[in-house]
């Protein structure tokens, strides 16, 4: 019988294992990449939804009756998945001619209330918020909305600035 190159019934299938293994390698690599991309995008959208929810909760309909209403809205917020720091600011109303930069982390960025305490809403301390200054900004979410506050019958415009970042 002429049996050149004949290894055996299983041996003849050995060369076909190479493309099969290669195909499996490609499939699982692409699957793993896709799953990772899907999870990271989903996480990003969840965080965006969270900061949008925080901002919607704090600005109400955009017209706050007194500074006290801002504090009341703050107390009603329940945020568990992200750290946030929010407040009202006048610094963006006059950004030094439109081309100036403002320091979000400076002590005078957010306004103070009648008792000269910073009018802010946060689930972290001021020092934790200021520590972000030296961190990378990759995971920082910022939203700004114009709002007005009625104070003694005078309607004062501000910007509501909400800064949120994921919990480590």
């Amino acid at each position, binding site marked *: 019988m002429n049996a050149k190159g004949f290894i055996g*019934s299983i041996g003849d299938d050995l060369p076909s294992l190479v*493309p099969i293994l290669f195909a499996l390698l490609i499939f699982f690599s692409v699957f793993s990449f896709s799953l990772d991309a899907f999870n990271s995008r989903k996480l990003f959208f969840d965080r965006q939804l969270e900061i949008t929810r925080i901002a919607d909760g704090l600005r109400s309909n955009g017209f706050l009756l007194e500074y006290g209403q801002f504090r009341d809205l703050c107390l009603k917020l329940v945020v568990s998945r992200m750290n946030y720091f929010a407040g009202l600011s006048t610094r963006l109303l006059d950004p030094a001619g439109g081309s*100036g930069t403002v320091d979000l982390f400076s002590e005078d960025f957010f306004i103070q209330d009648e008792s000269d305490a910073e009018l802010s809403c946060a689930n972290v301390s001021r020092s934790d918020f200021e520590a972000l200054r030296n961190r990378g900004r990759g995971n920082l979410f910022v939203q700004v909305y114009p709002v007005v506050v009625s104070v003694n019958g005078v309607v004062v415009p501000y910007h509501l600035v909400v800064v949120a970042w994921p919990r480590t």
Partner: protein
Amino acid sequence: MAQNLNARGQAAVTDALFFLVIVTSLGVFLFGFSANYGANVSEQFSARYSSDFSVAAIKSILYASVSRSTGQLVSGSDSLVPADTDYLLAFVKEDYFDDRKLGDPVRVGLANAVYSLLSPIGSSKDYLFAVYEGSSGSGAGLVRNGKPVFVLAHISDIGFSGKDLVIPDEKHFNYECSERGTESGITFDRQLSLLRASLGESQQYFSNIMLWKRSSGTDLDWDQVPSPVLLLVWTPKPKNQLKFDSGEWGCTEMSLADGKLSFP
């Protein structure tokens, strides 16, 4: 028999190659899907934020108070002196009543209110804020007016130098265009429509206010003038692609100093 076994081995390799081709095709499809996943959702987030910001801006502009002495938006400390303040909208209505036009102090105050409240997006977006007379009457008596009461156009100075796109650092033009004559023979509505068509993708937001004008009869009569308030926002484009000619629109360029707009 050897040939038969050899043929089976070749068939197995061929099958494996087909399997490789199919899996590679699926892999390419899966890769393409994952690369594009979330693009629509991301656009919706951006659109929703843009919409919420613009609606909040219009509301803030219409509700805000100004100082009667300076015509500028009040700050927190001004709230301690309520006698000196009034609603910006009240200023506009008072000034409009006599001659259906706004004087320079009110135009400057309104321009600065719009510019300040839209400053977070002012460097990355162009916008046009307009208050204009709407339609009045009905049926055969319907009058489409469209006369602008106040128009502020914030436009980037992007142009071409030869084939090169030139984008100066932070350079914007701020035009106030309510001094519009009728020499061009084109209505304000039509100019707005042409501008919108040239913008491509843009967002527009409306509100409505009620102005009053002195009736042509006696001093004691007045007519209502329902007036739309429009905020049109778009991504900056080269000037030659915009259907916006400051001369045709009857615009005056406002100068910017220390964050405040003023007429030269």
